[in-house]
């Protein structure tokens, strides 16, 4: 699948191998610093060809295979764009061009400190006042939070009986008064990515900042996650492949031939192959606008577990050699795959719900 992009894949991999050297990866990992120059460099590759999501998928996979911290940093400044693309007004869609061109960094502000994956119960409010909305509240674990120029933000615009009603999405300019971002440090992995806690203190939003219709925010965000999850699956796949590269490199260099290690190689390889097929297959439905959310959730949950499994296996097989920074970094990067964009637990409920409904 996606063989037609083999050339593009090669091109991306070459870029990654050239730019994501061990030194660069280590530097931004240690310093917890966002590599903005790599974002700019990468733009020339057409990584964000929104007309061609398959290319995005492949870019994510190949770049995360080399280093997930840098790979995600480079492919995530467009995070949230699908919300605007699908539900935004013409001006907002036009604005996206500035995101794609690299002028602006975008982000998505949904998760809150009290909620985790529980989107329906967010507490941030956008209270209507004349033709304005006054935004108050806070957000947690927001990728690009402290570097984004704009954020797609989910807030409560009215109280309804059902908590997932009454939510709306806005395009927030982070230069506005009342916006504060507190960069969070001390992450286990993907430390080159920027993560922040946000507070909104009486930020004045105009009605033009509203995305789509008022009260439909929950639906927009769920639609978005059903798309974005496939990219998380690709991150997980890439990390697993990167871990496997390290295993093979080590086994070949040290001429390891013992049968137990051969079995481990077969097990990891089989799991990665299954991850790849689950991911590509779910993506192919999604990309022809016939999404099958249970397949996407399967791919995401399985890929997350595969990333962790493969990286742990790399550590174990390499033994003391796993302490080498370029291997242990993979291990540290992998864990988040089971957590963000819906924990594996949430995915499993999605899967079983769809199955019991009768697909």
């Amino acid at each position, binding site marked *: 699948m996606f063989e037609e992009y083999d050339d593009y894949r090669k091109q991306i991999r070459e870029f990654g191998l050239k730019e994501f050297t061990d030194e660069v990866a280590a530097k931004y990992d240690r310093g917890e610093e966002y590599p903005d120059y790599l974002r700019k460099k990468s733009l020339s590759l057409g990584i964000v060809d929104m007309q061609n999501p398959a290319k995005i998928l492949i870019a994510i996979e190949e770049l995360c295979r080399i280093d997930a911290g840098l790979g995600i940093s480079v492919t995530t400044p467009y995070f949230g764009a699908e919300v605007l693309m699908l539900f935004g007004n013409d001006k907002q869609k036009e604005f996206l061009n500035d995101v794609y061109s690299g002028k602006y960094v975008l982000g998505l502000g949904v998760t809150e400190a009290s909620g985790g994956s*529980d989107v329906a119960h967010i507490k941030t409010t956008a209270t209507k006042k004349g033709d304005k909305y006054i935004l108050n509240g806070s957000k947690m674990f927001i990728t690009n939070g402290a570097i984004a120029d704009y954020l797609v933000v989910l807030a409560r615009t009215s109280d309804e009986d059902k908590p997932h009603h009454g939510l709306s999405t806005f395009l927030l300019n982070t230069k506005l008064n009342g916006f504060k971002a507190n960069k969070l440090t*001390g992450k*286990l992995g993907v430390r080159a990515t920027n993560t922040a806690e946000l507070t909104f203190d009486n930020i004045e939003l105009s009605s033009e900042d509203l995305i789509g219709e008022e009260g439909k925010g929950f639906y927009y965000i769920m639609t978005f996650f059903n798309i974005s999850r496939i990219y998380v699956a690709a991150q997980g796949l890439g990390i697993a492949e990167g871990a496997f590269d390290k295993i093979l490199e080590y086994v070949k260099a040290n001429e390891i031939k013992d*049968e137990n290690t051969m079995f481990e190689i077969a097990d990891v390889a089989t799991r990665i192959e299954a991850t790849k097929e689950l991911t590509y297959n779910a993506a192919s439905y999604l990309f022809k606008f016939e999404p099958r959310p249970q397949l996407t959730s399967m791919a995401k949950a399985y890929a997350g577990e595969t990333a962790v499994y493969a990286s742990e296996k790399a550590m174990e097989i390499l*033994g003391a050699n796993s*302490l080498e920074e370029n291997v242990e970094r993979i291990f540290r990067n992998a864990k988040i795959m089971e*957590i963000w964009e819906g924990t594996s637990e949430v995915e499993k409920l999605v899967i079983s719900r769809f199955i019991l409904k009768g697909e």
Partner: protein
Amino acid sequence: MSNLNEENNILRDTVREFCEKNLDEKKIEEEKIDNNINSLLASQGFMGAKISSKYGGSELDDISYHIILEEFSKYSPSIAMKIFMINSLYLPSVINTEYESYLQDVSSGKMNVSVDFMNNKYKLEYGNNINGTVENILNTDSENIVLFDGKTTIVNGPFKTREKDFMGFKGLKFGSIELNNKYNVIDKNSRKEKIMEDSYNDLSAIALGIISGAVDKAMDYSRVRTVFGAYLKNYEPLVFRLSEMYSKENILRSILYSNLDKYYTFNFAMNSIVEIARFSVNTHGGYGYFKDFGVEKFYRDAIILKSVFYGNSELKQLSNHVYSEKLTFI
């Protein structure tokens, strides 16, 4: 625990109180174990837990030693690793050699020491002096180190060291040592293999502490964190898994202190530790990924412990033991 007596329980409480009163686990991870902490540990007899009283040590029995390792590990795996290096690795390396008197300064916390146990494949060029690099060694701030290279060798500092940022046991300085020093052979045989095999239960005790710390954090969190309108402890799959992990913790404690065959205990510990530490991170959701919550360190230390100390050769030793013969593998 049936095999633990009143005295054991008092010791356990003592270590716990010591940690809470004197140590800041986050500071240890960030600023490393300093001389202050060394002295404190020494003053309470933890540093020389197994060292003979002749050299100022506490000369504790195995059970007491394991309680110390477990409790420190639960609070700060780095401290446990430091005590382990001294008592399980350094002590048996120098005992009954002309250097065993070094133990005096070790148990008093005056002398930092290290032992190369990382299965290094470094090449040492022997001459009058010893030249070469010891890669990946913990306690780079040591005054002397023990190396195994067919023989058992001791090398005195000062050393030219290069520190590296290290993902595991962050309280200890880690890096490489450029040797250009005098060396002394203290045993013409390598003591390493026996030392490592003798340390299985000690490592299981460290593992138990990590497991216990990880399970505790996760269970505590499940009691206070709400999501989708309910406490985490009201979600079946999460609670079932945590309860099974708590079961494993208790089984490990039981077999460790009832002195079951160390091979079985070690295997059980190593097969449980990573999975449990990982699930503790998962239980904490996004928060688990940040060091502030003090849970991701268990995951890091768990994988290091397993990767460094448990692999094919340990499985071979287990198999030889189980089959009561030296097996050959194709």
